[in-house]
């Protein structure tokens, strides 16, 4: 318990030291939205139809931006060794780091989603949009964290990172955006949302373990 608090405090401190961390995702998000808003003719109804896709892609890419730094510095300065040798299971470390990553990359997007969608002219189904993002972005952080752990040992694993992450999280995007579009055209968005929730639970239970194994693998 104290361990958990300590780990969390550490992550937040570190993030607070390196401002870029939490600046990048929202910035990216804003840029993407601006671009797509500009891509369409002024208040083109079509744009509303694309809004969910735009926001989802933005969320997904924003998650990628800060992923590489997730474990690297801790591995290189030897902190990870110390954590591995401590009684706190590595799984917990992973969980906390992923959570912190979500707080700085995913959460802001969830909060920004509704206004952004409005900017893009989407009026209805905003609730579904927010819900889908709230369920989806943690999955992005989890899966991304796993891949980050997998590639942290590599000279420039940063390059492999997106290649490996994106395929894994495409299904999430499919369901997320799908749910919103369904709601927009008046269909029931329940099913895809439940499915997202299911994936989230699945990832939460499995991925931290996988990531911990991957990290230990990186020591070699």
């Amino acid at each position, binding site marked *: 318990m104290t361990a958990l608090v300590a780990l969390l405090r550490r992550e937040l401190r570190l993030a607070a030291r390196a401002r870029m961390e939490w600046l990048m995702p929202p910035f990216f998000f804003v840029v993407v939205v601006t671009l797509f808003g500009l891509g369409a003719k002024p208040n083109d109804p079509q744009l509303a139809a694309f809004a969910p896709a735009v926001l989802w892609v933005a969320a997904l890419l924003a998650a990628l931006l800060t992923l590489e730094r997730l474990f690297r510095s801790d591995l290189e300065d030897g902190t990870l060794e110390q954590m591995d040798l401590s009684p706190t299971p590595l799984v917990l470390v992973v969980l906390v780091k992923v959570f912190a990553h979500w707080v700085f990359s995913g959460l802001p997007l969830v909060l920004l989603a509704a206004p952004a969608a409005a900017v893009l002219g989407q009026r209805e189904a905003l609730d579904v949009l927010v819900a889908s993002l709230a369920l989806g972005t943690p999955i992005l952080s989890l899966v991304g964290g796993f891949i980050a752990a997998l590639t942290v040992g590599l000279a420039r694993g940063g390059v492999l990172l997106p290649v490996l992450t994106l395929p894994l999280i495409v299904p999430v995007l499919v369901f997320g955006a799908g749910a919103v579009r369904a709601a927009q055209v008046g269909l029931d968005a329940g099913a895809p949302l439940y499915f997202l929730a299911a994936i989230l639970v699945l990832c939460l239970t499995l991925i931290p373990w996988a990531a911990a194994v991957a990290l230990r693998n990186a*020591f070699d």
Partner: protein
Amino acid sequence: MTLLRAEGLSIYRGDRRLLADFELRLGAGELLHLRGPNGIGKTSLLETLAGLRPVREGHVHGPGKAAGLHWLGHRNGLSLSLSPLENLQDWCGFNGLPAGGVAAVLERLGLPARARLRACRRLSAGQKRRTALARLLLVPRPLWLLDEPLDGLDAAGLALFAELATAHLDSGGAVLMTSHQPLPAGLAGRARERGLGA
């Protein structure tokens, strides 16, 4: 009683074997000083004994992970953008220890008050090393595995280290350390040397 025992241990890096069936036993109150040329495999050996690397061949009987030993590698295990105080508090945190004693310990290790609050990136080499060594005092653990702990320590630092290690040995602890420079006067007497390779 023995705190650490290795039997028929082989150490691999990549697919190269550095050490073949290596035997070791370390009892309470013993200080073993590992020596050997650069690149012979001291660090790799220590990492394996600490449980940081999988044991491919042979056996290691020791406290193993989870709070049985203190590990100090070439790398200090300090986040450069956090201060010594924060680093050690966090360390206590994820080791499930109260973080109260940190300031006192840093005092004991002679880290100037100002330096304690400065990001580790802005500490001198020796100050970083001292901070890393502070862990040894934060919680008593029977076995110390130290890789080049004397790196970057000044004369006072060496004396201090000798003092700490002696106290630890007297209280029934054991130390396994590597060092290219000779051990400080206080310790040399109690150390058993073990040469690797040529």
